[in-house]
């Protein structure tokens, strides 16, 4: 079976000379719920940007369901839904406009777009806020709009870059439930987060990235069988609990 995402020897050096990703390789199988973990600045967002065509690739290959995301990033991007870390929207636009415009960029016809928007607004409890501008929404509602936008074209691979940052407990639980349902229905999900509880609850496979390289990758159960996800994370990134305790002292 063609993997949902296959990255081989990805290297990304920015014009400033910063090596953000340095020989990263990983595979996400179709249907997987994949946790992509690492400290800030480890290269997670850059890897996502390279996958979605926002950043160019210095060397290496990226394939999304077999489509070359380096050579034909638009074709690959049409298979991917992206919920970025930042709220990159026109803040004076309404939720419907934000979702509708992206649906239009993907070439979805108006009638189908309308149906899909109604469905997403309903699903994310945004129907009470349709006429509000994005800037008037709470943090949790803003996150829902971004998720709705990522799902407008029913992507086969959904990439979530810290989707629950700044979200209240209620929405977080609701989001987890919705993501599980999506995954059950066949959407492959790549999740980056700093909430390890989220990874433990949702993901089946995990990769930990540090300094632009994958330092550990495998099924979640393997992580749990050892020192747990937190222990594995701290060990893999070179920051053991003792190390942290010593730093705090």
């Amino acid at each position: 079976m063609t993997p949902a995402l296959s990255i081989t020897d990805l290297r990304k050096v920015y014009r400033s000379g910063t090596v953000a990703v340095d020989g990263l390789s990983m595979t996400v199988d179709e249907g997987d719920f994949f946790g992509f973990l690492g400290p800030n600045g480890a290269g997670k967002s850059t890897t996502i940007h390279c996958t979605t065509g926002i950043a160019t690739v210095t060397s290496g290959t990226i394939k999304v369901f077999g489509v070359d995301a380096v050579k034909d990033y638009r074709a690959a991007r049409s298979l991917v839904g992206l919920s970025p870390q930042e709220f990159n929207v026109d803040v004076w636009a309404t939720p419907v406009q934000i979702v509708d415009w992206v649906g239009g960029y993907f070439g979805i016809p108006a009638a189908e777009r309308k149906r899909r928007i109604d469905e997403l607004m309903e699903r994310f409890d945004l129907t009470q806020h349709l006429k509000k501008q994005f800037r008037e929404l709470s943090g949790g509602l803003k996150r829902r709009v971004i998720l709705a936008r990522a799902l407008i074209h029913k992507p086969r691979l959904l990439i979530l870059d810290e989707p629950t940052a700044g979200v209240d407990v209620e929405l977080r639980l609701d989001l987890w439930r919705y993501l599980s349902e999506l995954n059950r229905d066949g959407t492959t999900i790549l999740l980056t987060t700093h909430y390890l509880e989220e990874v433990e609850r949702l993901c089946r496979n995990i990769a930990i990235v540090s300094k632009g390289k994958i330092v550990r990758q495998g099924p979640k159960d393997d992580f749990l069988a050892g020192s747990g996800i937190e222990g594995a994370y701290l060990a893999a990134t070179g920051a053991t609990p003792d190390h942290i305790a010593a730093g705090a002292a």
Partner: protein
Amino acid sequence: MQTSVTTPAINWIGLWTIIRREVQRLMRVPIQAFIAPWVSALMFIFIFGYVVGPRIAAIAGHRYLEFVLPGVLMMNIINAAFLQATSQIYFQRFMKYIEEALVAQLTVLNIFLIAPLSFVGGVFNTVTMLPPFLRWLAWGNPFFYFINGLRHSMIGFNEAPEPLGAVLSLALLAILSIGVWRLFSVGYGLRE
């Protein structure tokens, strides 16, 4: 259950979405989009029509106000078009939502020749009023042909044949469109 997303040679729905989005945005800023250009045009008309105009001799039988009006109108159209487009692209880049438009096969351009080209394009004077060594700036200036065409349609006065202006304007449009399309295709300035 998945929606199949086709990538046509030209994404007409994407193109229409960008036009629709821009119109919706313009409607949110009516003063900036519609009132400001009018105020600017009226100020020019007042100064050149009623303050300076009466002291200037008629041009080809037309009062100076009649002569300058089409030029001022075209200058404001060009300025408004340029400012709206560039400010929006800047804002989209700043807020990063231009990244979303990268999936559509479309737009970006950068110039800073608008004001000088407008002023030597015959807004306030005929080409023959310019010193001979500066006249080539008018003949080679696309804005001159825009103004010349509008002026001819309004008062019947022209300094260059309209078909020539139309051909040059269309050629310029084609060249710039290809340039913009190429820039956006490679994500110039958008993808690092």
